[in-house]
């Protein structure tokens, strides 16, 4: 008799244990479980890396072991889109969660004419816009930025909110940033911090050792290129001048292999950085967000470099979030914008940034996408005013369409990304209904969200972002 009750009791305990286990298992993946209050935050800016060259996102070459490992521990987005196609506006959009036309840091110079050159600066152009850095600082975080200057130079406004901001080396890489990081972390042991770790290692203007051989280089290459930054610059400018450059298939294979080699090397340096964090016991209370500001074109549309178009090779970027204690290992395919990073961080940290920052943010937190596979992504908007050479605006929809408008010529392009991910087949003449739909959405965005100043003539000399710069 007694044994019967014992058995029932034990079964009950077993049931309770199983339920409890399942309950806590479920809890781990709810948004509440993604919280990381008081955690450190590191933004890793992997400049110029396009998503298509990331191994775990489908690229056949093993270019990114560190990123792959990070993605295995966290969440990686396969359709993360930058709101810009080059550095100056791209990272600024992330730090402010605003579109380039809104924060107005769209070019190196705010005014650039024969007689006048006024450099851009966030505070001067948009005094009411704050960066996440300032918010973090207000909440007692130590703030440090370790970067490669150029497009993220402190003078442009990237240093806003950073107690320490290093940018002494033009087109500096991760090794250089890591040196600065080490000493800074030494100084602030035990204190919660927000860090921007950035390097130009895969950028065209990165100083690479002469005679560099990419591990992916073709066995035999008889073409003229050596992979120097001077060659890259020349190809870039030639493409801008002529609208296209002319390379052989062998040249293209060489350059793409060279890019992949640089990615591999940078990935290894990144690995050293992560190792450093691990050594210091920081990984279990540091949220890591890795993203790029833009990709790099290697002849996908017959040109080199970035900034001057809004095709996917320039705007589809890696985005990986690793939250301590959260088992990830999932690739999320819903479309997001890198504008969504800062709102997500605030949610994860449980920080209330208050006004006006709350109203300033134009991104939507992507936290819910980390757990909810059914939740849809959203349409994203992209822009560039690259060096006054061109002014383009685009919408990339959640269901795989891209509509691009070139403001100075009125030219329109429409691509269906699912059958045509290379964006080679412009459907603007045939898919009229779709074109109408997206044109309308884009124009509304320009008018309502970007407050594109009307009444300004849209010439390529006058940036449509700065009122009063184009006198009638």
């Amino acid at each position, binding site marked *: 008799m007694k044994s019967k009750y014992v058995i029932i009791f034990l079964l009950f305990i077993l049931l309770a244990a199983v339920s409890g286990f399942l309950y806590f298992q479920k809890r781990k993946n709810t948004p509440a479980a993604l919280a990381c209050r008081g955690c450190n935050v590191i933004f890793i800016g992997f400049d110029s890396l396009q998503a298509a060259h990331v191994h775990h996102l489908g690229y056949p070459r093993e270019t990114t072991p560190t990123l792959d490992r990070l993605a295995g521990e966290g969440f990686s987005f396969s359709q993360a889109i930058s709101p810009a196609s080059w550095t100056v506006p791209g990272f600024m959009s992330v730090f402010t969660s605003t579109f380039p036309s809104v924060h107005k840091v769209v070019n190196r110079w705010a005014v650039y004419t024969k007689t006048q050159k006024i450099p851009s600066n966030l505070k001067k152009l948009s005094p009411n816009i704050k960066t996440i850095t300032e918010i973090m600082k207000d909440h007692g975080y130590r703030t440090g930025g370790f970067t490669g200057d150029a497009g993220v130079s402190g003078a442009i406004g990237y240093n806003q909110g950073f107690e320490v901001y290093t940018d002494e080396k033009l087109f500096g890489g991760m090794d250089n940033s890591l040196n600065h990081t080490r000493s800074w972390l030494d100084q602030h042991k035990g204190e919660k911090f927000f860090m921007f770790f950035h390097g130009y290692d895969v950028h065209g203007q990165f100083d690479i050792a002469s005679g560099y051989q990419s591990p992916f280089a073709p066995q035999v290459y008889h073409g003229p290129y050596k992979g120097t930054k001077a060659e890259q610059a020349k190809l870039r400018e030639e493409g801008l001048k002529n609208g296209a450059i002319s390379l052989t298939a062998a040249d293209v294979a060489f350059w793409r292999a060279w890019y992949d080699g640089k990615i591999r090397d940078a990935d290894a340096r990144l690995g050293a950085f992560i190792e450093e964090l691990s050594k210091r016991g920081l990984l279990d209370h540091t949220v890591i967000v890795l993203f790029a500001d833009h990709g790099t074109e290697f002849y996908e549309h017959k040109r080199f470099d970035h900034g001057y178009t809004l095709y996917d090779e320039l705007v589809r970027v890696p985005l990986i979030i690793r939250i301590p204690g959260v088992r990830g290992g999932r690739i999320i395919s819903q479309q997001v914008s890198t504008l969504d990073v800062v709102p997500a961080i605030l949610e994860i940290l449980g920080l209330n940034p208050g006004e006006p920052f709350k109203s300033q943010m134009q991104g939507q937190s992507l936290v819910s996408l980390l757990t909810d596979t059914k939740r849809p992504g959203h349409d994203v908007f992209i822009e560039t005013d690259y060096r006054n050479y061109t002014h383009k605006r685009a919408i990339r929809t959640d269901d795989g369409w891209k509509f691009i408008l070139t403001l100075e010529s009125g030219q329109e392009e429409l691509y269906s990304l699912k059958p045509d991910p290379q964006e080679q087949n412009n459907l603007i003449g045939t898919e009229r209904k779709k074109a109408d739909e997206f044109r309308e959405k884009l124009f509304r965005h320009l*008018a309502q969200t970007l407050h594109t100043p009307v*009444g300004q003539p849209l*010439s390529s000399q006058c940036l449509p972002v700065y009122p009063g710069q184009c006198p009638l």
Partner: protein
Amino acid sequence: MAKNDFRSLAPARRVLTQIIVLLSVLAAVLLLPNFSGYLQRPIQVCQKCNVILISLDSFRPDHTSLYGYARDTTPNIDRFAKSAFVFDSYFAASYLTPISEMSVHTGKYPFANGVINFQAPLKKDVKTMAQILHEQGYRTAAFGSSPEFRYYEALLKNFSRGFDRYEVAPMVRAPERPSLPDWKPIDQWLTKDQKPFFLWLAIGNAHWPYGQDAPLRFTSPSYRGPLRNIPLASPLLTHIDGTTLYKFRTENVTGWYGMTGYTPQPHIPAWAPKTNITLTADDFSYIKDRYDDGVRNADQYLQKLFSALSRYQLLQNTIVIIQSEHGEELGEHGHIAHDDIWEATTRVPLIIKNPVLAGDRRIPDLISGVDILPTLLDFLGIKGMATDGESFAVSLSGKSDSFSRREVFITRTPLFERLLATPGNPHRVREFITKDDAEHFYDTAIRTAEWKLIHRKARGMLDKFSWWSYLTGQAERRKEYELYNLRNDPGEHENILQKFPEIAKVLLLKLEVWELRTAPKENLPPQNTKEIQEYF
């Protein structure tokens, strides 16, 4: 069981039959899209068809019986239009005769083709309808009574391009304006030989002076008001603002008359009022009656053409396009004129007959004057011409929701008659035409099915030189933007820009993108040289 029953077949045969049926169904399914594609193939070409373009000056569609006017002003056009396409939302690209008309002849907007005023040259590399058809081996002729295609050298040169024969009547001393072209030579020319022909008929009859030489059917012979016995021509009509007919003043009359090519009249005509007169409803009715008589007179004249087409059996191989290059304001905004880009001046009739397309349909969709040429070329199967317009040829043979145009764009270069010669300096006005037009002192508008946004860029200049300001002594004081909702306010009286700023912004952005695309680069505001910012 019958012997031929399917079930009676041997199993192997049954299976074979099933396979064949399946394959047939599959084939049909696969081929069907192609088959229906064949059925919906773009329109049949009207091979070497003749083309007749009729330009009816100053025709308001809402004063034609075809478009629902209570008066029987266009019985002949009505009858002709029975098997034609009639367009309810056709808009001219501008509001002045030659500027608007050239957009139709070239399929390009005024700043893109060059004809932005009465003296600007048509660009050398732009081809007109007549040139294109002439190159295709057509014999081409223009007959007309609209002096605007003749009386300046530039106008003559521009519009006569491509015509073997150009007989648009020269301007004569006002108000003896020849109202209708002599029919006999046209009749003879139609049947001259077997080559396909392009005929352009420019009927000026409904233009000022209203009802010129027209039988008076709508005008009451018992009218005794101040306007009787005075030609309702521009010198008189432009002295009306609101309900006042302003007196003629001696100073500056020279400039006005001198510019239009009229014989300079340093003296005020005998019929001109010497004091301001308040006009009554009767007076305005009289003006409209005369206008309607002009419309009907043009319609009567067109019957000559319609019966000739029947008689010579030309209907079966002739495309006929009847359109107007602008309408007319009859007091809606206080003026009796076509001097601005209101609905009344830009909404115009369009009737198209194409013998290979079944007509007798009303098309509600937006069409612009620049769409006529590309559509005509599609009708004729002539390829390779780049225009600013969108062909609606395919849409005419499909469902109505296949019309792609979502907005029309309208340009207003300042009516030179409104530019006042400052006392003692009539040459100043001429300077204005070329210099300021080129520097974009003009208004533009975008009109969707529901909204119209006007950008008054010329307001600064007009403040200084507006005829109406001179006349009334009151400055124009235009706002920079005007937004009208045409569903609720078809008369365009309430500027609701402040209520709908976001709609205005969207429209203005589209307008600016259009301007950049169609305005020649050299006419953009200064600073249009690309100066790329240097790299890091």
